[in-house]
């Protein structure tokens, strides 16, 4: 059994607000193998971005707090790591790509300064070595005129170019894991397609593990081997991508896949909707958080939270698949 690169165990993160305590992440556990690409999908408020930030311990301390759980990186629990250890980890072993490249890049520094900064901090290279490395990195992210781009400022570049710079910064120190938080959401669809292909190529070349956080099920289909579906701060389904898209088990996943209009469908029946709206995380519903909106809801769903059941090579958190349910044909 190969050891996982990253193991999240029972992570709980919450935020204190004027209205109460928002439980953003309520018990997330999963593994990431070396070189694996995993997609985390869910709608707004499901806790996917918070999970990404929690792994890197970037949750702002008031108002947020990681209240429970462990993040295992090899043998050590990152949540207990010292500040110095974090400087070594962030950017170097685990890198992050954020959603909005304009606000993630410093508008008053040139690209050369920003890209060089991470190399300066983590490697001891001289200025000319860093310069050569920067050009190499820009080539890796397929920018045609790297020397010119290095001298420019973020506002002179398009959204797609800036996102490539972000990717270059992320891969600069050859990290073992890249967490990409909605990297294509603010981009045009043609640029998005380029980004996905670029990330795929980089992943293949460097064998980095990638955690792709997005709300777009289609983008995940192009990149990932495995998918985690998040709802209300918990994982509701964890499956390999082909299995998930051909036969989704959890009613929320089924609803999501049916609610997305397809380019290549010829049928014109109305989009299936999931009634209601995402739950309030200050006072989540009792039992399974999805039960008020679920077409398959049963008595037990309102009473107790289902754990992750392992069935047929995937994990589902749904009472419908409990072996004790009469008429359950799926074993």
């Amino acid at each position, binding site marked *: 059994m190969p050891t996982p690169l990253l193991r999240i165990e029972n992570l709980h993160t919450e935020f204190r607000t004027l209205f109460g305590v928002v439980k953003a992440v309520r018990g997330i556990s999963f593994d990431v193998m070396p070189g694996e690409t995993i997609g985390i999908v869910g709608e707004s408020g499901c806790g996917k971005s918070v999970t990404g930030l929690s792994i890197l311990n970037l949750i702002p301390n008031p108002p947020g707090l990681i209240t429970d759980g462990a993040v295992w990186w090899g043998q050590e629990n990152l949540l207990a790591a010292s500040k110095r250890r974090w400087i070594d980890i962030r950017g170097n072993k685990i890198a992050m790509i954020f959603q909005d490249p304009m606000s993630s890049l410093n508008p008053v520094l040139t690209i050369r300064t920003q890209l060089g900064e991470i190399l300066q901090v983590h490697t001891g290279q001289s200025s000319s070595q860093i310069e050569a490395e920067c050009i190499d990195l820009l080539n890796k992210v397929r920018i045609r005129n790297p020397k010119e781009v290095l001298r420019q400022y973020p506002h002179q570049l398009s959204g797609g170019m800036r996102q490539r710079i972000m990717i270059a910064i992320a891969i600069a120190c050859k990290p073992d894991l890249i967490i990409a938080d909605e990297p294509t959401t603010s981009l045009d669809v043609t640029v998005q397609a380029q980004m996905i292909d670029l990330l795929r190529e980089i992943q293949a070349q460097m064998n980095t593990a990638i955690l792709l956080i997005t709300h777009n099920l289609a983008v995940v289909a192009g990149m990932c081997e495995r998918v985690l579906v998040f709802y209300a701060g918990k994982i509701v389904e964890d499956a390999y991508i082909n299995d998930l898209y051909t036969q989704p088990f959890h009613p929320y996943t089924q609803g999501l896949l049916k609610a997305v209009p397809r380019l290549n469908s010829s049928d014109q029946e109305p989009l299936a909707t999931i*009634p209601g709206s995402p739950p309030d995380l200050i006072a989540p*519903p009792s039992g399974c958080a999805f039960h008020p909106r679920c077409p398959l*809801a049963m008595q037990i769903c309102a*009473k107790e939270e289902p754990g992750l059941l392992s069935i047929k090579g995937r994990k589902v958190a749904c009472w419908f698949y409990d072996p*004790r349910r*009469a008429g359950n044909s799926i074993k």
Partner: protein
Amino acid sequence: MNNPSLFSPLPKESVHQVEKARPSLNFWQDGWSRLRCNKIAMVGLFMILLISLFSFLGPFLVPYTYEKTDLTNTFLSPTWQHWFGTDELGRDVLVRVMWGGRISLAVGLVASFINLVIGVVYGGVSGYFGGKVDEFMMRIVDIIYSIPILLIVILLMVILKPGLANIFLALGISYWVGMARIVRGQILSLKEQEFALAAKMLGATNLQVLFKHLLPNTIGPITVSVTLMIPNAIFFEAFLSFIGLGVSAPMASWGVLASDGIRAIRAYPYLLFFPAFFICLTMLSFNFLGDGLRDAFDPRLRK
């Protein structure tokens, strides 16, 4: 746990839409609840209330009037009969400080209100219509802003002769420019927002959009601005009185009292101390409150 009925379908009546459970808060309630958490601002508010009570109700509780002189009891230090002592004409300083409070607070409020009205209308029109109108109106503001306000006020007072009503006038027409700039800035950013466009698209006239949509949404910064204008007005009034252009004797404002007090500072420091103390305390309290209001109404902290 092995009860098979647990797995029977949930009846639809108990599957209800999860409504937003938060209580319905409008703009003021939301701001107030946030203000309450800010201790310093609450202290400021409390002090303002105390000072107001002191000034407006106090004179009824003190057995002296502000103008009654008693030449046998001049320059008394604070005693149990005269808590703040007496001045050179034997008048009780405590009640004069209270009256001073009335005048200073009244000046602060009225002058700020006049500034508010002029500034809001001017800034609103300038910001909304934009273009050449805005350019022209703002150049006027720039010119007025570059002249020291104090000079304008002093000149006005020299022309108009000292008196309470004239103080209102002089202060009221001198620094509406700050308010105008703030309002203009707010309007400029709000008028491109989608709800303003929606109002235009529904067919609202320009004035309707300005007064029904844009200006109500600037009430936050306007309130903060007014709250911070009041101590300035109080200070200016005190200054005017200090240099002899304010209210005339025997009426007492804090500035007049301070002016009287400074002449006797070596021998009778309490005569300066009490009015000065109250000026400082009032100004500080309004500043604390104004800062707290600015945080409480900050739209980015909503949602």
